[in-house]
């Protein structure tokens, strides 16, 4: 048996059994963070906090929500919203957080793209991040089914139909996913299970992997500088805190992170109390009706860009373009052929690529919201083709880039 001594304190007792001092060093006081970073590096922590708010508000909603097609709509719109004290608060926090989390995820992603934080040892951070994006998309979609309003039903119909894979006509898969010919009770109960258990579990596991993937390469910095962490941290520990290029994660960097979180929370609760409307679609305040499609179906804003890539083409080509859009971001570390880790604006043609991509995604998002007619369809088509063309061009553009 391992040797234990009589403990001098509770701290010592725990340290002998759990090595808490060592863990604290590795994870916090000697986890080194570069000084040369800005508020965009706090987005990861903002995401953690937003996820925690989703979890807490979700737990409270769960106490009154009923996953039954006859009662689901009223359990949300009547019981939770009107009867339960502060029920509206949990619902608004949940809805606003579900929408804002995607805004932050996009900022976080494009920060990574701009500074080249997805290559030279940081590939697994990027890949686990994209898996988080997929898991969050599944979480948002399954949650959207639960109030069983018109948009829940018809979004459920359209999205599950994607799995027939176009002309392959695999209707068996669609019926298997739904447990019925159309979205009905079996569908609602299984998406309820996914939303409150399986997908959140996957998200928590993925957050763990995402953090583990950060530990060895460390976070990138504003200039893409590569430096010797042993040397810089030794300088810091020797007392030369000014000369060192790094600081401790806790409490030093954490205090900066939490400052940004505080600013974010003020904005967040401003939305929760005074401007929550954007996060809840008016059409979903009509109960689900399988015999009436709403005049105009569109997803929540964060899915509009990929939805617009589906829309202008024939069914099969649309599906292929949509599938392409869903997976292509994962491959970014391998499609970028340049070894440079530097901000986009110092990388020549890649800067143009970066800003074109942002403008194109905004155009796709705007067109996705407008009715599929006339000039909007045409702009949508060009934007969708541009999206694909940009990805095809990426390896060539980055190959031509000069080595820094």
């Amino acid at each position: 048996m391992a040797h234990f001594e009589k403990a001098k304190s509770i701290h010592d007792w725990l340290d002998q059994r759990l090595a808490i001092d060592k863990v604290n060093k590795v994870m916090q006081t000697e986890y080194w963070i570069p000084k040369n970073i800005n508020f965009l590096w706090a987005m990861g922590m903002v995401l953690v906090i937003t996820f925690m708010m989703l979890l807490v508000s979700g737990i409270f909603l769960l106490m009154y929500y009923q996953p039954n097609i006859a009662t689901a709509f009223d359990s949300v719109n009547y019981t939770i919203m009107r009867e339960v004290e502060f029920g509206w608060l949990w619902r608004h926090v949940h809805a606003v957080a579900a929408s804002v989390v995607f805004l932050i995820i996009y900022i976080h992603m494009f920060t990574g793209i701009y500074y080249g934080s997805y290559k030279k040892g940081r590939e697994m951070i990027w890949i686990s991040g994209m898996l988080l994006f997929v898991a969050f998309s599944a979480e948002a979609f399954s949650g959207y089914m639960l109030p069983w309003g018109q948009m829940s039903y018809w979004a459920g119909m359209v999205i599950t139909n994607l799995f027939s894979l176009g002309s392959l006509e695999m209707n068996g898969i669609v019926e298997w996913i739904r447990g019925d010919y159309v979205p009905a009770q079996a569908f609602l109960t299984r998406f309820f299970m996914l939303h409150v258990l399986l997908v959140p579990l996957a998200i928590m596991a993925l957050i763990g992997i995402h953090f583990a993937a950060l530990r060895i390469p460390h976070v990138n910095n504003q200039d893409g500088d590569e430096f010797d962490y042993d040397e810089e941290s030794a300088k810091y520990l020797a007392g030369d805190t000014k000369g060192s290029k790094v600081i401790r994660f806790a409490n030093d960097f954490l205090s900066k992170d939490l400052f940004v979180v505080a600013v974010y929370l003020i904005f967040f609760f401003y939305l929760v109390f005074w401007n929550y409307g954007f996060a809840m679609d008016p059409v979903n305040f009509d109960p689900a009706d399988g015999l009436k499609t709403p005049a105009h179906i569109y997803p929540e804003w964060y899915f509009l860009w990929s939805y617009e890539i589906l829309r202008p083409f024939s069914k099969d080509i649309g599906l292929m373009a949509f599938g392409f859009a869903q997976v292509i971001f994962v491959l970014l570390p391998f499609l970028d052929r340049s070894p440079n880790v530097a901000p986009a604006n110092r990388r020549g043609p890649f800067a143009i690529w970066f800003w074109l991509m942002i403008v194109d995604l905004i155009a796709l998002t705007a067109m996705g919201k407008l009715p599929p007619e006339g000039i909007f369809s045409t702009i949508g088509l060009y934007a969708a083709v541009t999206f694909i063309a940009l990805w095809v061009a990426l390896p060539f553009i980055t190959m031509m880039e000069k080595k820094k």
Partner: protein
Amino acid sequence: MENNSRRGFMGKAFGAVAGVGAVGSLVAMKQTWDPLPSVKAAGFTNVDLTTVEANVLVVEKWRGKPIFILKKTPEMLAKQNDEQNARDIKVGEDSYLVCIGLCTHLGCIPAYASGEEKFKCACHGGEFDTSGIDILLPPPSPLPIPPFKIDGTTLVLGEEGEEYKKMKEAGVTV
């Protein structure tokens, strides 16, 4: 060495047990998600065709899906080509379109514009003519014709009658 082969044997034995268990669980999990027998045993729906008016869309529900019934006007019939005629269901003097009212693109319910005499899908802008044939992308195929039987002036949905079988052979039901 003896130890090694013993370890190898135990490893393989575990692999075999785990493999059988994994396959078994996957089968159970897959079938748990299949539609229930009560869902599959969907009933039949009867529709009285005598009350249907020309150029006014009637929507019935069958297996949770909307069924479109459109009685054609003489003007419509005069303009029709062979492909369109082949999809008509004739009851006495009258011709009807009967089809599943879910867009063949991704399953929205197209709306009937009686003035323009066509179906328009609001989701992604697809269009169908009065015979349910796709005339504007993205839908890739006509609105499908469900199994039906004509019983006097009653339309029975869910049962394969003579007329349906003939249409199916001619390949116009999909």
